């Protein structure tokens, strides 16, 4: 056993890092336990000639394929959307595309506006100052005054649209659709000691240039300088509770595999929308036989994964290919509800560039666009660097049967039960997906694509893990209150993507981090009454 700490954070990803930094000014003793290690920029694939091969092996987005020592297996055979995560200092931000939209004001009010799901207990306005603070800390590039949002500016100018972005923008102007340069957590000029993006085109498996804002290079250096202790290679097995029903700390395995008990006055869960409910479900006791903080029965339920169909298009002239950040523009033309479309809520179109030669050749050979034999070379040259894609980010509303439970047999390398995902797409989401596919295909054609293909599920697993410990004011309908505190255990907090009430139709990390900063501020304001 080690000395007690004031605040014990589990997980060092997007939310854990932001929260740790914000709490550091309290001068409390704060420790973060992270099952992974620091990743060295020199180890990122972009440093080597095997960069594309590594995207399918040790830098794969799926932990089940990657199989790093820090990864835990996920049984996702019962879900059309596979689970993408990264387990290291920085968590998912090491491997994310850094597309950085905020949730929209309407996303927080879906019951009032559209009669579906439930309203959040907080609003866009609640989070607005924290969005701004987070944009500054992460270093976000974008263009001010997008008419799809309340006005706001960004610290840096937007990433260039390139050939493909320009082509899509012109086509959307002809169709009369909304579009805007994407906000991206990517430095477009020198920023706080970070070098600007040089279009390595390799954002997903880590940015060797340090232009992409992963929290290992943004929040963590500042938090550690301010006194937070980050312990790596420490995998938490369970959160413990005392006779009074309060959390007493966590049991974890350290880098030598030894079991350690870390006592704490406050425990903060930041292990993401899969890792957090997994840990809570693994923390059973006489008081909480169905998992810690689970009197509502909602721990692990209402999982939202953002189904993400992708439309690919090939053009006669050269596009950006893999040269440049993956993302370029977004369109919110179909974001807000219009029931004449046959579904409620909506989706964002996210515009992306193309793959490297292996990705192109593989897709070509599989589809038959490229033959085996002498014709391969000419066909490759017809398609390589001539592709661009559109992702359709669907707002999959919460459903209790979409959930994570503990797998009865699958375990991680420490013998801790692994999560199993049960996830299906609702008729509303299915209709939204088809609408998005039709519109994206129409746009591809308008932009001049001679060939288009559709992938409904396999191409893009966005790694958005939301809703499994949702916030709310009613303890029977939510796991944590409106400032992240468990209804059942008054010194247990959840600050990651688990607390989302609905998922919105945009990438969630900007909002996840704003919520983490907001909860930190709420806690700081209530330090003397925190457990009341």
């Amino acid at each position, binding site marked *: 056993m080690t000395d007690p700490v004031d605040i014990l954070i589990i997980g060092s990803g997007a939310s854990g890092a932001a929260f740790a930094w914000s709490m550091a000014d309290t001068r409390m003793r704060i420790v973060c336990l992270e099952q992974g290690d620091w990743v060295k920029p020199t180890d990122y694939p*972009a*440093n*080597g*000639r*095997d960069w*594309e*091969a*590594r995207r*399918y*092996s*040790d830098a794969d987005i799926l932990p089940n394929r990657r*199989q790093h020592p820090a990864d835990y297996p996920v049984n996702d055979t019962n879900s059309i959307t596979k689970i993408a995560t990264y387990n290291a200092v920085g968590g998912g931000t090491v491997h994310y595309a850094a597309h950085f939209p905020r949730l929209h*004001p*309407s996303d*927080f009010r879906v019951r*009032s*506006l559209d009669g579906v799901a439930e309203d959040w207990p907080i*609003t866009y306005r609640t989070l607005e100052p924290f969005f701004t603070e987070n944009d500054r800390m992460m270093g976000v590039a974008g*263009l001010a*005054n997008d*008419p*799809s949002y*309340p006005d706001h500016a960004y610290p840096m100018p937007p990433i*260039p*649209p*390139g050939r493909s972005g*320009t082509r899509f*923008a012109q086509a959307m*102007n002809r169709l*009369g659709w*909304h*579009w805007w*340069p994407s906000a991206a957590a990517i430095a477009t000029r020198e920023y706080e000691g970070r070098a600007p993006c*040089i*279009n*390595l*085109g390799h954002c997903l498996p880590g940015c*060797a*240039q340090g232009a992409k804002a992963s929290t290992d290079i943004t929040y963590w250096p500042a938090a550690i300088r301010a006194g937070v202790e980050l312990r790596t290679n420490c995998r938490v097995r369970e959160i413990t509770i005392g006779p009074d029903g309060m959390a007493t700390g966590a049991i974890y395995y350290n880098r030598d595999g030894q079991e350690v008990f870390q006592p704490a006055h406050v425990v903060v869960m930041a292990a993401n929308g899969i890792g957090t409910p997994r840990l809570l479900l693994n923390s059973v006791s006489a008081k909480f036989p169905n998992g810690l903080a689970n009197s509502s029965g909602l721990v692990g339920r209402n999982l939202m994964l953002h189904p993400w169909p992708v439309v690919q298009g090939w053009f006669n002239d050269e596009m950006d290919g*893999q*040269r*440049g950040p993956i993302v370029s523009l977004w369109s*919110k*033309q179909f*974001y*807000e509800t219009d029931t004449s479309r046959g579904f409620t809520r909506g989706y964002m179109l996210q515009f992306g560039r193309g793959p*490297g*030669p*292996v990705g192109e*050749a*593989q897709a070509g*050979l599989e589809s038959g666009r490229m033959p*085996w*034999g*002498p014709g*391969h*070379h*000419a066909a490759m*040259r017809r398609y390589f*660097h001539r592709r661009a894609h559109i992702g359709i980010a669907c707002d999959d509303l919460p459903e209790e049967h979409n959930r994570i439970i503990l797998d009865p047999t699958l375990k991680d390398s420490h013998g801790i039960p692994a999560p199993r995902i049960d996830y299906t797409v609702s008729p509303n989401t299915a209709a939204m997906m088809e609408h998005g596919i039709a519109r994206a295909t129409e746009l591809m054609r308008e932009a001049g694509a001679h060939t288009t293909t559709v992938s409904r599920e396999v191409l893009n697993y966005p790694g958005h893990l939301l809703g499994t410990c949702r916030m709310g004011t009613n303890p029977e309908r939510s796991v944590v209150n409106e400032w992240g505190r468990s209804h059942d255990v008054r010194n247990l907090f959840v600050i990651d993507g688990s607390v989302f009430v609905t998922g919105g139709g945009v990438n969630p990390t900007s909002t996840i981090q704003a919520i983490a900063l907001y909860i930190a501020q709420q806690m700081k304001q209530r330090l003397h009454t925190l457990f009341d």
Partner: protein
Amino acid sequence: MSNTLANPPPSWGDPNLTDAEKRTLAAMCARMIPASDEFKVPGADDPLIQADIAKSLGRDATAVHDTLALLNRIAGGDFAALPVAKQEEACATLRAEGGMNLTLTTRIVLQCYYRDDRVMISLGMEPRPPFPKGHVLPQGDWSLLDPVRARGKIWRDA
């Protein structure tokens, strides 16, 4: 690094190919991506590329062994010994029946083929890793946004 480890876990399969498997693989690669004078590229059966493939089986070693075994079964024996026309027939059957194992095997072939200097140069790429030089992306013209701005606010007050 990469898809290979000094001590790969047994669950990945045997990381080494037998001499017979190497012959089958090279013959299959020659059918998949033959050399081309027109494009000034070697075939995927080029010895340098084959050597790269042979040490890159990694997580997919079992898939490669199984694919090569299936190809020999389709060929009714030694695929590499068949005349070209018969090899092409066998490859057509393999493409129909190879499933995920063939997908993984093909990816390993492509991974090694498309990082060969000669091939990259022929494709107009510089034979180098992305970092540190990076690439240049054409800057945009944000006046294209004028009509979007002109249409005004589209977010819903909530």
